[in-house]
């Protein structure tokens, strides 16, 4: 059992940076390592898509429509003869762009809102949190659908919608963490020493709640990808002909006998979500010394 009084102390030894120590601990965590490797593979596919595909994802070939997987087209072809493999690989770009930016925006906006709300307290806190509660009462996909329906379906708008629906959870988490951390002795000490509110929030509170937020960010990324692919599955995400995984799965539904059209892009979503979940779980184990790893 770890000592409870140690509160949230960094895992780092004096001579190593916390980032390095975290990475090393992650490498020793089998599930975390697996998650990290999956995500690296997806990121590799996204970045080097032109190098690992021989056919452009937009190339239409009416002489090769609905071809099952073969040595030429390892994931087969779609209804207008495009390579499902190329489209799945390029789809990683869209998925990563939307998920990382949406979660990034939500993380920054939500955490700042939650921190300020929790730090100030009082009426501001009540109002901010009630608004967050109201947004949380909506299933994320339903709200994201409604937002996209209002502002129109496109890559940027899908990103905006997913960011908006993800903000309240970050705000809640940051606020909860602030309420705990601001009661700690060293924060009180900083207050007594006359540190400004901004300084206390930036240098004393933020670094302390960051591990929690990063863990949550990784888990939110998987939820964001499910929402993004749900949107594009319903035709309200990134618009064709851009290769979006959710939309590819949806089109496959019109060609039941060509199972590969839905199967491979869906598999890509599955592995990416799995990667984020595994990484998030591992980060939680690694970043929280109070938690006993089992």
């Amino acid at each position, binding site marked *: 059992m770890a000592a409870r009084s140690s509160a949230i102390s960094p895992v780092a030894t004096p001579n190593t940076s916390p980032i390095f120590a975290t990475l090393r601990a992650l490498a020793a965590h089998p599930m975390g390592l697996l998650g990290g490797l999956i995500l690296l593979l997806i990121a590799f596919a996204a970045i080097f898509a032109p190098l690992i595909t021989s056919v452009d994802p937009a190339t239409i070939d009416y002489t090769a429509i609905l071809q099952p997987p073969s040595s030429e087209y390892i994931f087969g072809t779609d209804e207008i003869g495009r390579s499902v493999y190329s489209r799945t690989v390029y789809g990683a770009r869209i998925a990563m762009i939307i998920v990382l930016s949406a979660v990034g925006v939500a993380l920054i906006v939500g955490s700042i809102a939650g921190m300020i709300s929790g730090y100030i307290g009082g009426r501001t806190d009540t109002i901010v949190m009630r608004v967050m509660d109201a947004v949380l*009462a909506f299933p994320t996909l*339903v709200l994201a659908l409604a937002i996209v329906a209002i502002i129109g379906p496109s890559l940027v708008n899908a990103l905006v919608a997913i960011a908006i629906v993800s903000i309240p959870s970050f705000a809640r988490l940051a606020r909860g963490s602030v309420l705990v951390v601001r009661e700690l002795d060293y924060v009180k000490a900083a207050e007594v020493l006359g540190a400004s509110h901004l300084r206390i929030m930036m240098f004393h509170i933020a670094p302390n709640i960051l591990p929690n937020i990063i863990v949550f960010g990784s888990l939110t990324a998987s939820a964001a990808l499910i929402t993004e692919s749900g949107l594009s*599955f319903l035709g309200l995400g990134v618009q064709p002909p851009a290769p979006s995984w959710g939309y590819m799965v949806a089109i496959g539904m019109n060609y039941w006998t060509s199972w590969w059209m*839905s199967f491979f892009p869906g598999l890509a979503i599955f592995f990416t979500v799995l990667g984020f*979940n595994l990484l998030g779980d591992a980060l939680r184990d690694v970043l929280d010394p109070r938690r006993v790893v*089992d």
Partner: protein
Amino acid sequence: MMRSVRSKAAQLLTVLVLSSFIVFAIGALLPGDPTIAVLGDTATPEQRAQLRESLGLNDPLIVRYLTWAADALRGDLGTSLRSQEPVLQILADRVPITLQLTFLSILLAVVVGIPMGVAAAKWRGGTADLVISVVGLSSLAVPYFWLGILLILLFSIQLGWVPPSGHVPFFEDPLQNLKLMLLPTITVGTAMAALVMRQARTAMLEALSQDYVRTARAKGQSEFITTMRHALRNALNPIVTVVGLQFGTLMGGAVVTETIFSIPGLGRLVIDGIFNRDLAVVQGAILTIVLCVVVINLLTDLVYAWLDPRVKV
């Protein structure tokens, strides 16, 4: 005690007012001219202006919200621009279908998830634990729509055991209804089962390490009774919470799942409403979904208190 109930009620009311405003705003902000849906393309600008005035579309947003909310409280959610049916009537037809799907999914999640979680905790670190954990992690990562399609490919197209899609009201033909609901239930319930399993495992590990479990064992109680009556009874609370809190996610899953399986529920209603620009229908359907989520969250709190007498509502 009275004070905490009152502040809880006030909190609930505030959330309801705020979220109903969001629902209203969604309907008001959706692009598209509602007069086209009523009058068609051929109407003159004067006719349109007249209709806008009579529909109250020229009033300030807050006035329109208050009118809408007052009507909604009286049970008047407007009429569908498309079918000219009262929205409340449409909802009355659709809501039971989605509720059946969500409750069947919860049933599946509980029936599968709890025993798996208990088994994983009981044989912690063993093969069973590993297999259950891998299955659980994988189930959490499967997108609803992909799972639905894989199920149709396997059980309908390949094996031909169940029809791929469609819906029959339960009271018309219960057997056919359940047959058609089978794949959608698995689609929505799988991720939930994994969540229940993970929560059950954690809670059981906690409960099994408690003194009262050791006491029960020391008294010579059988291992089965110890696990079920002493440990599981105390592990139920966090499990109930996870089911309650995930209800919203479940409703979101129903939206996609109903689309795949052509089930005429609340989710389909939202999607169709959005594509048809049928504002009153979209507002009514989303409002109903939010109401369900808020009510279920409240019920979760109450069940929590009932299961654990130490907790005050």
